[in-house]
């Protein structure tokens, strides 16, 4: 049952901007996410320069005043989470991979899929517009705690605050539409023969991430409506003098906030599972256990949120409950990391660039996970809350998620997306040039954090204990390391665009992988499969005894396995 669909050759606008093809929408999300990453990265460069070399002219920006610093920090946080990590990890990889890996021609609802990108683009433009309004972008931290975010007189960026809130709300709606599409496509449109446990882990993880997002974003949408009315219609939802309660927003925000970090973590874990399995030529160790631990992490992520608010004025008795659930959620995550490491046992590990990124993810994420225990236990959180220890902790989880795992995915699926191979040596230069400086940025910040540096402060001149020269040296080292890391990103950008035209031409299955997306030509034609596949086995059949090659594609019947010559 072929899928030739006769239609007029679409014009440029139709093909690129109004296309309902899941692969084109994936590219739109990918390039929008990468553009926003440049903006977010630039903000990081600016405020790190201010911290590393206080009160000096920052080349390319100018002088960083306290108000600008707050806006830079707020926008860096908001952009990197909502407009870089989520679109690239969930929407770009989700849109590109799910139909291909699940064996169907497109998403179940292509037009809803296109609408979700358009609303996402609108949200990005609304956020960028908030840079140009009077008072500048919102400066009250990406968490936007009222009354600071609710009252214009307090945050001095009233228009920026409302635009920031609208942009975040639009982004939520975009990902609700996108998430529903991923879930329905994976549940209903799987290739015949692909049972629940034959679905590749990256598809499982992206779908679970969308479900967790859908179930956790609801209360925050309600909270955002209330905050919008507080900002514009002078209601008193969060105004204590008029019966409101600022803690209500904190609870609604973190009830969404913590599941949100698992929403971005799971797709990254899925990508790394694919990469590690392919390059270690090994079946994932305990596929079902990884799935069950993912389910338990997904559910537990709803009962831990108040560990962000231990000292925020919640009732002290609640802190112990959330401290226990936070330690509880570290159990399934530890199990998953152990399983990923165990996958390496007995394999033959090819250290190509995607595998380097995959292993770097496991190595770096463990440091992030381990430092979370310091913050999860309520005792030490009294001292460490809102210090640079917290910043170093969540960058050791977010950078592996949003940068290292994304590079693993991009370098792995680049041949499939664009039909060309990326340059290996440039890839390795870029790898070492990113991972080593990354550690040199954030290890010093752990130390300044334990020494008492508080976050979101543009200079420590007012604080005697924090202006010790030793701490300032650490901050400057961290800034210089960031400059190296940002410089090496241009190696990747060059490699990315240079290989588009002049990279080695890639065949359908350059990495000899066994999942369905490698059975179609690269880049996949419209409608993906000439012959819609039938699935016979699980996704990670590597090293199968009695099979001519060391991998068994999902759509090859068992009988034909033995006779397969090295294609």
């Amino acid at each position, binding site marked *: 049952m072929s899928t030739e669909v006769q239609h007029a050759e679409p014009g440029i606008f139709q093909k690129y901007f109004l*296309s309902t093809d899941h692969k084109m929408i994936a590219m739109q999300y990918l390039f929008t996410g990468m553009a926003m990453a440049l903006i977010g990265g630039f903000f990081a460069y600016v405020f790190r320069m201010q911290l590393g070399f206080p009160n000096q002219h920052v080349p390319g920006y100018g002088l960083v005043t306290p108000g600008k610093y707050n806006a830079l920090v707020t926008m860096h946080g908001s952009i990197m989470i909502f407009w870089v990590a989520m679109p690239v990890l969930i929407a770009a990889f989700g849109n590109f991979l799910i139909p291909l890996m699940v064996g169907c*021609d497109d998403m179940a609802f292509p037009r809803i899929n296109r609408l979700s990108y358009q609303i996402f683009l609108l949200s990005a433009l609304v956020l960028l517009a908030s840079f140009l309004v009077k008072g500048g972008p919102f400066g009250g931290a990406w968490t936007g705690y009222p009354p600071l975010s609710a009252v214009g007189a307090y945050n001095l960026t009233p228009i920026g605050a409302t635009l920031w809130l609208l942009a975040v709300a639009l982004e939520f709606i975009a990902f609700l539409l996108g998430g529903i599409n991923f879930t329905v*496509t994976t*549940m209903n449109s799987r290739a015949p023969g692909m049972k629940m446990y034959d679905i590749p882990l990256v598809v499982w993880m992206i779908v679970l991430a969308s479900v967790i997002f*859908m179930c956790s974003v609801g209360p925050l949408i309600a909270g955002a409506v*209330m905050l919008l009315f507080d900002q514009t219609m002078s209601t*008193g939802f969060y105004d204590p003098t008029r*019966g409101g309660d600022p803690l*209500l927003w904190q609870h609604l925000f973190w009830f969404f906030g913590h599941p949100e970090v698992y929403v971005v973590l799971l797709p990254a874990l899925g990508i790394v599972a694919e990469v590690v399995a392919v390059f270690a030529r090994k079946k994932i160790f305990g596929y079902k256990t990884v799935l069950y631990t993912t389910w338990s992490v997904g559910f537990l992520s709803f009962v831990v949120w108040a560990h962000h608010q231990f000292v925020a004025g919640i009732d002290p008795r609640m802190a112990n409950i959330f401290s226990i659930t936070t330690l509880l959620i570290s159990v399934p995550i530890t199990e998953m990391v152990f399983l990923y490491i165990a996958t390496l046992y007995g394999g033959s590990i090819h250290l190509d660039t995607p595998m380097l990124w995959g292993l770097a993810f496991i190595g770096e994420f463990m440091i992030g996970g381990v430092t979370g225990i310091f913050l999860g236990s309520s005792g030490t959180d009294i001292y460490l809350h809102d210090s640079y220890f917290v910043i170093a902790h969540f960058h050791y989880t977010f950078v592996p998620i949003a940068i290292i795992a994304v590079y693993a995915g991009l370098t792995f699926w680049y041949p499939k997306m664009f039909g060309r191979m990326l340059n290996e040596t440039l890839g390795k230069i870029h790898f070492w040039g990113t991972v080593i400086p990354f550690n040199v940025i954030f290890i010093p910040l752990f130390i300044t954090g334990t020494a008492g540096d508080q976050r979101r402060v543009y200079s420590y001149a007012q604080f005697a204990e924090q202006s010790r020269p030793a701490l300032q040296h650490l901050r400057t080292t961290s800034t210089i390391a960031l400059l190296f890391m940002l410089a090496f990103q241009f190696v990747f950008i060059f490699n990315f665009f240079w290989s588009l035209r002049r990279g080695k031409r890639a065949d359908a299955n350059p990495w000899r992988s066994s999942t369905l997306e490698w059975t179609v030509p690269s880049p996949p034609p419209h409608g993906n499969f000439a012959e819609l596949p039938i699935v016979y086995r699980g996704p990670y059949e590597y090293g199968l005894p009695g099979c001519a090659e060391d991998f068994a594609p999902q759509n090859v019947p068992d009988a034909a396995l033995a006779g397969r010559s090295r294609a």
Partner: protein
Amino acid sequence: MSAGAKPIANTRSGTGIPTARLITWWVIASEIVIFGGLLASYVMHRIGHPEWAESASHTNTWAGAFNTFVLLTSSLCAVLAHKAADAHDGPRAARLLRLTALGGLIFLTVKGFEWAADFREGFVLSSGGFWSFYYTLAGLHGLHVLAGMIIMLIIASEAAKNQEMQRVECIGLYWHFVDIVWIFLFPLLYIAR
């Protein structure tokens, strides 16, 4: 992919539920969490602020009760439309869907008059905690009623030509969900005083 042709993915049904109804259940699940969050905040504030009962007494219970009756009746029409659609009787289903949408219109007009009376009495969105929640809850619910009506009219026009009949059931599901939200909103806003 011309707009009309559906992808194969849309026609498959791995879970046994057609994709149209499956996506409706997911929409309802995410709506439960949105209204749930707002209602939870309202309930906590109502218990925390007993003095709001005084301002709650100014709400017009009769208008609320009549609106509940209107929504119940329109839910009946929606499910009868689904029965007609199952019997492949497109025009009848379309007529019943349009009747349901009319019920929604009546609901909104009654609410309009009710709010006009409240405004005249001086109770606006920013006059106190209860009224903020009252207008936010009823307003968000009203928007969902309006959105449901618009989609319902589009589906009715297609059902009249015996096309896309499975969508009649889906808009019915959404409408029943909006009715259930109002079933909980009615006592919370109009009776608890």
